[in-house]
């Protein structure tokens, strides 16, 4: 890509900073069925995730979801595989980078903070914003851009319950440049 082409692309992608994407309210409340299915695969045997009676007399006094399920409640579902991820500004930005040869993608870092444990019946909403996009960088995978989304999680009363940052590298595969 010429310097002018890069400048034109960067002007377009940096315009995505601050754009909201993928905001939604979970179709299912926090429930013991999905928690149990998760625990089966992860090998998690904590009674406070699995046994309502035991949880009632435990330190929490109630059943709670595993912490890292915070981002599970609002997943898009099977449509991702069957018809594709619904369009939002993040998907648009990825497609724009793809079209300019930055078609590699890899998640590099994610942090979840938990303000409280989620209980049965909680209905979790999330709002995701493209928070920042790096200058063009040279990495081991190829040249590209790191972008970071920030997701805020709230409950049915609008109270914050958690926060997630998620960093992704969109890169032009190094082998492609050699070809």
């Amino acid at each position, binding site marked *: 890509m010429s310097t002018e082409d890069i400048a034109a692309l960067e002007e377009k992608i940096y315009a995505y900073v601050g754009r909201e994407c993928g905001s939604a309210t979970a179709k299912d409340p926090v429930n013991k069925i999905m928690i149990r*299915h998760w625990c089966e695969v992860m090998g*998690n045997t904590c009674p406070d995730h699995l046994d309502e009676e035991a949880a009632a007399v*435990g330190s929490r006094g109630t059943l709670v979801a595993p912490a890292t*399920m915070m981002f599970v409640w609002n*997943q898009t579902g099977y449509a991702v595989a069957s018809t594709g991820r619904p369009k939002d500004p993040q998907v648009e930005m990825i497609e724009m980078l793809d079209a300019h040869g930055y078609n590699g993608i890899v998640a*590099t870092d*994610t*942090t*979840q903070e938990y303000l409280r444990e989620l209980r049965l019946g909680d209905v979790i909403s999330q709002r995701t914003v493209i928070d920042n996009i790096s200058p063009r960088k040279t990495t081991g995978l190829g040249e590209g851009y790191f972008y970071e989304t920030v997701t805020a999680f709230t409950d049915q009363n609008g109270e914050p319950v958690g926060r997630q940052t998620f960093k992704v590298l969109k890169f032009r595969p190094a082998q492609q440049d050699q070809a």
Partner: protein
Amino acid sequence: MNQNLKSTEIHVGQTLPERPIPVTSSLVTCGALATRDFEKVHHDKAFAQASGMPDVYMNILTSQGLTETYLRDWVGRDAVFRKLSVRLGAPNIPGTTMTMSGQVKSVEGNVVEVEVTGQNDKWGMHVKALATLELAG
């Protein structure tokens, strides 16, 4: 799962027992489904190969879930997760083993920071995590 650890039983530098986890097609695909991550690279081998990978590979939510479970088994039932930061490295591809290990980084009052590494025997560091746990009472 251990009995609840007390802060007096935890010190900086303390190591957690290693846990080897066989990475199988079942763990990868069923982990993706249990976390409702329907990206094809986690369940469709032909699709994953077309994207340049040797096979399906583990999704992040499963790596986080295995990390949470590893820490839960060590710290005991009552501790509460406050934060989990995860740095992602090599992919977890079926036919390999990821060995989890951990080390205590700080203890302040009831708050403990633990670093967890998931080392893939073929591809290298899969995940390096830093967890903040609050012990009960």
